[in-house]
Structures are given as structure tokens and as C-alpha cells.
């Protein structure tokens, strides 16, 4: 059965899967590049690009957080091996999103940026999310996991839940009036966090034997 095959993927299949996923994760960026080149991003392309990059950072964040629940529900343990790449794509799109703000919105006027961060709650919280994301990206290498030690590394990476909450609130606070989209993101995030709260702790990959190694890949 396909289900059974999907349970036990070989090394080769996983490598191919990773390459395919790597390429797929670039599609939102390529789409923006194509749209910009063809003047197909509407009347305010800079706003479109900034918002789209932010949305995709958040999308990838929720996809990353969906890996563990999905792995537990399906028993496809190899899913854990895709998590680092997805997490790094969160960082990738967050960097680009922040970059458009710093460059195309503020033109590197650092004084204005500092004022914004202090005065505007949605910027403050967005910037906090990015600041918290930074150490996670920096400790994503196998070497850093080893140096920190599994337990400490995992404790640090629990920051991802704080980041996700900050990111959704950032989105919620920037919307002018219609909060239906941020509300949908909030519901999805609640489900993903709720899953972890309800799932028995002793089923976590750290405590059980072989899974932890897979989780760090």
C-alpha cells in the first residue's frame, strides 16, 4: 500500500523529496519576481511584495509547526527531516519581508525605523518576532545542535511558539479593519499549539529513542 511505502522512505527518496521541496519553497519568490518584471503586481507593487513576503514567512512558519502533528498522525517519521529546511525558509522570507520594510518603506532611515519600532506596536511585535527568529536560524546547523546539546537546543527552539504568536499578532494589528485573514491564521495556530498541549509528553521524539536523531536532521 502507498501508505506503507510512505511510512518507510529510503535515503534516496528523501534526498529527492528535499530537492523538490527546496524548489517548491522558492515558488512564492519566483512568482513575485515574475510579477514585478511583468508589471502584474497591481498599482502598488511595493506594498504587494512586502505583504506577500510577510504572508509567506507566516505560511512557512505554520507549515513548519504542522510537521510534528502530521508526523504523529501519519507515522511518517521522515517528515521530521524536512523541518529544518522549512524553518529556514521561514527565516528566508522573514529576512526579505523585513528587508522590504527597511529599504522600500523606510529607505534605511534608521532614526525613523527606531521611532517606528518604539512607537508602533505592530512594528514592535514584528521586530520582536524577527529578533527571536535569528538565534533559531543561527543554531540550525547540525554542529550547533551538537554544541548546544539536544536538551538545550530544544528548549531554545521552543521560542518558535512565541515567534508564531508574535507574527500572527503583528498581522492582526496591521490590518485596517477586516481581520478575517489574521483570524484564520490565529485559528490554525491555536490548532497547532493545541495539538501539542493535548498530545502526551512521553510521546515526544526527544524521549523516545530513534526519533530524536531524525528530528534534528
Amino acid at each position, binding site marked *: 500500500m502507498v501508505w506503507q511505502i510512505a511510512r518507510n522512505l529510503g535515503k534516496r527518496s528523501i534526498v529527492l523529496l528535499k530537492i523538490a521541496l527546496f524548489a517548491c519553497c522558492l515558488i512564492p519568490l519566483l512568482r513575485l519576481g515574475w510579477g514585478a*518584471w511583468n508589471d*502584474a503586481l497591481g498599482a*502598488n*507593487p*511595493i506594498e504587494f511584495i512586502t505583504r506577500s513576503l510577510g504572508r509567506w514567512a507566516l505560511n512557512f512558519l505554520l507549515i513548519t509547526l504542522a510537521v510534528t502533528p502530521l508526523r504523529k498522525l501519519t507515522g511518517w517519521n521522515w517528515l521530521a527531516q524536512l523541518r529544518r529546511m522549512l524553518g529556514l525558509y521561514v527565516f528566508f522570507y522573514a529576512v526579505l519581508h523585513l528587508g522590504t520594510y527597511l529599504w522600500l518603506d523606510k529607505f534605511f532611515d534608521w532614526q525613523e525605523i527606531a*521611532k517606528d519600532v518604539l512607537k508602533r506596536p505592530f512594528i514592535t511585535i514584528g521586530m520582536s518576532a524577527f529578533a527571536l527568529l535569528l538565534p533559531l536560524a543561527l543554531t540550525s546547523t547540525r554542529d550547533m545542535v551538537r554544541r548546544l546539546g539536544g536538551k538545550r537546543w530544544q528548549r531554545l527552539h521552543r521560542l518558535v511558539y512565541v515567534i508564531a504568536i508574535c507574527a500572527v499578532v503583528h498581522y492582526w*494589528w496591521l490590518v485596517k*479593519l*477586516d481581520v478575517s485573514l489574521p483570524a484564520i491564521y490565529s485559528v490554525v495556530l491555536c490548532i497547532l499549539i493545541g495539538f501539542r498541549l493535548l498530545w502526551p509528553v512521553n510521546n515526544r521524539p526527544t524521549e523516545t529513542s530513534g526519533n530524536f536523531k531524525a528530528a534534528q536532521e
Partner: protein
Amino acid sequence: MQPILSRLAVQIAPSEITPREVFERRRDFLVMSAQIAIGTVLSPLSAVLASEKPLTGIKSPLSTPEKQTPLKDVMSYNNFYEFGTDKADPALHAHTLKTRPWTVSVEGLVKQPKTFAIDDIIKLAPLEERIYRLRCVEGWSMVIPWLGLPLATFLKKVEPLGSAKYVEFVSAADPKTMPGVNRSVIDWPYLEGLRLDEALHPLTLLALGLYGEVLPNQNGAPLRLVVPWKYGFKSGKSLVKIRLVEKQPQTAWMKANPREYGFYSNVNPEVDHPRWSQATERRIGEFLKRKTLPFNGYADQVAQLYAGMDLKINF
């Protein structure tokens, strides 16, 4: 098709603006490429962007000589929540709006309350072309050649009474033709208001058209207000009722969020929106941001209306 950077960075002389016919030919390709790029179906857009009835007006000395925002941007980037809260929504959904027959009733504190048919309003006075800056509260701006008549000219026909101090503007809210009205993001109908002296100011325009044609539906057809020194949301669209009243009317945005939106809502770089700065703006089509001017650059004409008022309190 030009790459985005060259499109935004180069300043184009008005004489070089693509003629409408040429622009219309590239429209099909534009819509097609947008569909592929954005992955949404934009087919109603091409229908809505199709040419409407021509309308002409006398050139006005109140016009700005600044470069006008391309028609396709004016028609595809709109805040008109009656058709959805995304700025692409009005262009996609406003084709359902029926603008004929259409009447506007003027009531309240006037000597001659009257219901006007839209085609009679067009004939009420010679139309003028007014090229105005439009500054949205969200931090972007456009330059639009409107066609219309001064609101003062219109209001004189109904003879406001001495007791009238404010004017309330009521927009259409028909759930059958305006899909956004089915969602309660705003307490429908959309309401706006001006002080009577603001309403009678020569800059205040009752617009019936833009770019030499009757108003496209997504821009507030068949009749809308244009108050160029205030944020765009003060200029109610698709008006059905104008009421002269004694007390300051509640507006839709004040009801939605009184902390963020005040009655006056004059463009003011020194009074921030509680969530973002109003010091700068992005003129649609430009790469760099501009400094926002007090009263959107109309301070010489309108600042005296607010003499002695603290505009930080009366935002």
C-alpha cells in the same frame, strides 16, 4: 512590459503618457499575465475596465499640474468596502452595480428638499475637470482628473437653512448589487460628513466622472464626493442621500474605530494614525516616498477653515 524598477524610478512627462487606445490594447495581455502571476481569475476586470461613456468638462484653475496616475491604477486599486475589503475587490466585483436609474435625495435643513435623478445632476451646471491629489489614510496617494461640479453649486439649488451646520453623506448599501455589504465590517450604509463651510468650499467637488468618462463603478459611480485636503475615506462614494443637519453627524469610520478616525480627518503629516506615521506617502507609480503636505498641499486654500482649532484633538 517594463520591469518594475524602471517603471517606478523614471519620471515621465505628461506628454509621454500612453494614449488610451494603446493602453487598451495592452490590457488583454496585462489581465492575462496577472491571472497567471497572481493565480486568480481576473476576467471580470477586463469587462469593468472597458470604455464607458465619455464626459467632458471645462479645465479648472484649481487643478494641479502634477503627473496624473495612470487610469488602470485609478481603476484597479480602490478602497470601496461595499465590494470587498481588498483593494483589488472593487475592480472585480463592482460591475454588478446598476447606476441607472439612480436618484440622490437631499433632505434635512433645506428650503427645497428634492430628489434628483442622476442625469439631471449632470445637467445642473457646466462640468469642470479638476485634477486633484488624493491621499489615502493608508499612506498612498494618486493624482486624478475628476469631472464634476462644486458641491456648493449643487447645495445652492436646495437652499440650506440657517440652522444647517453640517452635511451628512449616505452611500448606497444594496446587498444585491454590493456583495461587501453582506459582511458587517462596517455599519452600513457608509456614512460621511462635513461641516457646512467645508462642504461649501470651492475645492469640494461632486464628481461624476474621471479621465474624460463617467465614473467607473469601482470609483464610486454614479456620483461621489471629492474632498482633496482630507483623507480619501472622507469622500463618500455612490451617494444616495445628502442630509443637512444641525449636529455633527456620526461617520462610518468613527463608529468603526473612534480612536483611529476622527470627524475632520484632514491630511496632516504631524498627526499620526495611531498605528502608522502619516509623515510620508507613496505616490502610486513612484519608487521613492514623498513627504506628506499639510492639508494634502491645499493649505493655502483651506487652512483658514480651521483657524484656532487644535488639529491634534480635532483629527
